[in-house]
């Protein structure tokens, strides 16, 4: 498998499962993490134990210069990035009328602006290479309202718009840009939500797993998805059906 994969927010949850799955697909994998070095090291160790190659890079991608710095390190150590998974995300919930600028910016900066900056950097090489895969991890909240998450919903809906537009811009260069839209997946980001409470609203009557989302990302990142671009694959047990 040529080129490496870069997974933002790769130390836990969906990002960690994705990193492991892409390593299994044959990619060297760079994991970008913000705070939990032990978790990132654990993912790297798991990949290496399977015979793969992995690298953990610490960065706060909410900072404007961080994406370029991360890519500089990854390209130097693992080569060009042929698969980018924009997974890093955060929440800062509040009703719209009470949401602070800081809460708005925190979520938009990481969930949307960082994905844009990483994509912009990755596309420069992907376009020249006439091949590349970008997968944006959005959310079913992009399709529907969710009181208390105006910033999160706006960021994820923006991510889908960015996915479609970027996909159209680079499709003729063999680069695909897609999104997955997970429903309720128990991770650190949702640890304040009771899975037992939400599963009654899900047609499948259960919550999803990070591995089920990772399987969809793996497909979109693979050669099998070469004619799939500009779309969002929901992974939500029927929640948004």
């Amino acid at each position: 498998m040529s080129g490496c994969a870069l997974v933002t927010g790769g130390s836990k949850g969906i990002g960690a499962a994705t990193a492991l799955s892409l390593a299994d697909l044959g990619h060297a994998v760079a994991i970008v993490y913000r705070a939990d070095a032990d978790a990132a090291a654990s993912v790297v160790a798991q990949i290496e134990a399977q015979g793969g190659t992995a690298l953990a890079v610490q960065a706060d991608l909410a900072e404007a210069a961080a994406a370029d710095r991360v890519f500089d390190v990854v390209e130097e150590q693992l080569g060009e990035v042929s698969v980018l998974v924009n997974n890093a995300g955060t929440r800062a919930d509040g009703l719209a009328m009470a949401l602070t600028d800081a809460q708005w910016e925190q979520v938009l900066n990481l969930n949307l602006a960082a994905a844009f900056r990483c994509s912009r950097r990755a596309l420069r090489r992907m376009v020249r290479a006439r091949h590349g895969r970008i997968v944006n991890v959005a959310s079913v909240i992009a399709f529907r309202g969710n009181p208390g998450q105006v910033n999160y919903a706006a960021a994820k809906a923006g991510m889908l718009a960015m996915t479609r537009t970027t996909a159209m811009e680079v499709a003729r260069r063999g680069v695909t840009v897609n999104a997955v839209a997970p429903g309720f997946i128990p991770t650190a980001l949702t640890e304040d939500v009771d899975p037992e409470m939400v599963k009654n609203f899900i047609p499948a009557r259960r919550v999803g797993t990070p591995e089920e989302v990772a399987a969809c990302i793996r497909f979109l990142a693979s050669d099998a998805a070469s004619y799939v671009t500009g779309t969002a694959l929901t992974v939500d047990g029927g929640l948004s059906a």
Partner: protein
Amino acid sequence: MSETKTREEITEGICDALASFGPDRDQVTLDATLADLDIDSLDLVELAQIVDEQYGVRLEAIDLKDVETVGQAIDVVIAKRERTLAGQA
């Protein structure tokens, strides 16, 4: 930045780059228009990358705003390269 590139080498390099975007190499003449060659905005962004990498010239969108032909594009690159080299001297 290498100062040893000749005008002919830069012309050849830019024509090769434009040909890599689709048109036959023999269609890429100095008088050919970018429109006739079906060179679009994505191609120009990629051309700017190539020019930066090969000749150390940072093209901005405004630099190519009024460019219609291949020859004009090459003139813009060479002129900007000379300004850049003069600035480094």
